Every structure is written in C-alpha cells, then in structure tokens.
C-alpha cells in the first residue's frame, strides 16, 4: 500500500534562511511524487513533482525538491525563506503510469511552515 510520512508537524525558520520540509514515501514500483501548499481557508496548490529523470526538481515560488530513491525521500527545499511562504505543505505519492486504482493520490499529514520576520 502507498503511504507518505511527514515527520514534522511544524517547521520554524527565520526569513532569509534556507528551509527544508521532510517527506518519505512507500510505494510498490516507481513513484510519482508531489508537493502541494495550502494557504489558510484555501484549496491545495500544486508546487512541483518528480516523475522521472533528474533527481532535483524545481517548482513554483523558488521551491525545489530532491528525490532520493535509496532513502525513499522527497524533501522540499528553498534557499531563502519568505514570510509569505508560511503555509501548510503536503507531500503526496501515487504509482507511476496506468489508470484505475493506481491513480490514487495519497497525502502525508502535512507540515506547517512558519517563517518569522
């Protein structure tokens, strides 16, 4: 069965400092991995994804994530945090390819990122 773990409920970082939000996953076969962000009282916005190829993927708002197959991780990173980055971040996984039940997108429990000015 697919699963995603986000070990930190909250990450605190000072503005201008680098940030990392951790994610590990479990899926049989090759994974498609995603990061989404949720601002208060809003829906989920797609940030970036890993499908195949280069392990470092870049996404919206200066975020990037590194896929590490041996550690089954997909940590979200940003070199310099902004106060406006403060939000709830979700990692998600689904199986690669196909349709049917393989399209099931499973989310982690979310990590609240708080960037202090």
């Amino acid at each position, binding site marked *: 069965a697919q699963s995603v773990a986000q070990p930190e409920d909250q990450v605190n970082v000072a503005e201008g400092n680098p940030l990392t939000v951790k994610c590990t996953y479990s899926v049989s076969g090759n994974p*498609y991995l*995603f990061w*989404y962000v*949720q601002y208060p009282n*809003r*829906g*989920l*916005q*797609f940030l970036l*994804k890993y*499908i*195949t*190829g280069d392990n470092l993927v870049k996404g919206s708002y200066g975020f990037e994530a590194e896929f590490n197959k041996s550690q089954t991780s997909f940590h979200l990173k940003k070199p310099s945090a902004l106060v406006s980055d403060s939000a*709830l971040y*979700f990692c998600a996984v689904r199986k*690669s*390819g*196909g*349709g*049917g*039940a393989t*399209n*099931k*997108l*499973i*989310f982690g*429990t*979310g990590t609240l990122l708080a960037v202090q000015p």
Partner: protein
Amino acid sequence: DTAVSQTPKYLVTQMGNDKSIKCEQNLGHDTMYWYKQDSKKFLKIMFSYNNKELIINETVPNRFSPKSPDKAHLNLHINSLELGDSAVYFCASSPIGGGLGKTTEAFFGQGTRLTVV
C-alpha cells in the same frame, strides 16, 4: 475560467439532513476525486472516478454517495448527516496515467466547509 469548481463554498446544516456538494472541472481530465480534510488537516481520499466509473471507494459510510453524470462532473450526496461529517471536502481532477512531459498532477477545488450542528 476556474479549473475545478465546487459549490457551495460553505454549508451549515442540522444533523439528520441530506445535502449535496457539486464539482465541475473544465480541464478535460478523466479522473475525479473527493477528499475529506478533517479538523487536524489530514487529507483522506474518499472516492475516485474514471470516466464516470467508480474505481476507488475508501470504506466511506454508505451515507456518502458520489454521482458522476459525465466525466466533467462529480457530485457528492450525503444522507443523514452526522456531527462527525463536519470537515472540508475537496474535489480534484487529474489525467489518467501520465509520464515525463505530461501532466500528472491533480488540480483541487477551493473546498466546501461543511458544518453539521
């Protein structure tokens, strides 16, 4: 030109009532989902439809009945509402399969905040 739209945005109702939430996507995706986000912000998949066919039903009480009149619409009807049904319900859509260079991510609606009193 909202990609995934849900109505209503807020729904307050009494226990025992029956209510529906509507969802429409204009992205041409084949797959649509309903997710429930509880008070702790956990996101749990409820249902998934491919081209109007139910493919995922995550042991949701049968008081919840999704209906997909066509592949652009997935409505959620809830009978005999209970206090524990209070949550934010998100509709989403994604293409089937995918791969490098293809769209694989799911797009989410803004959510419907259901409050049962």
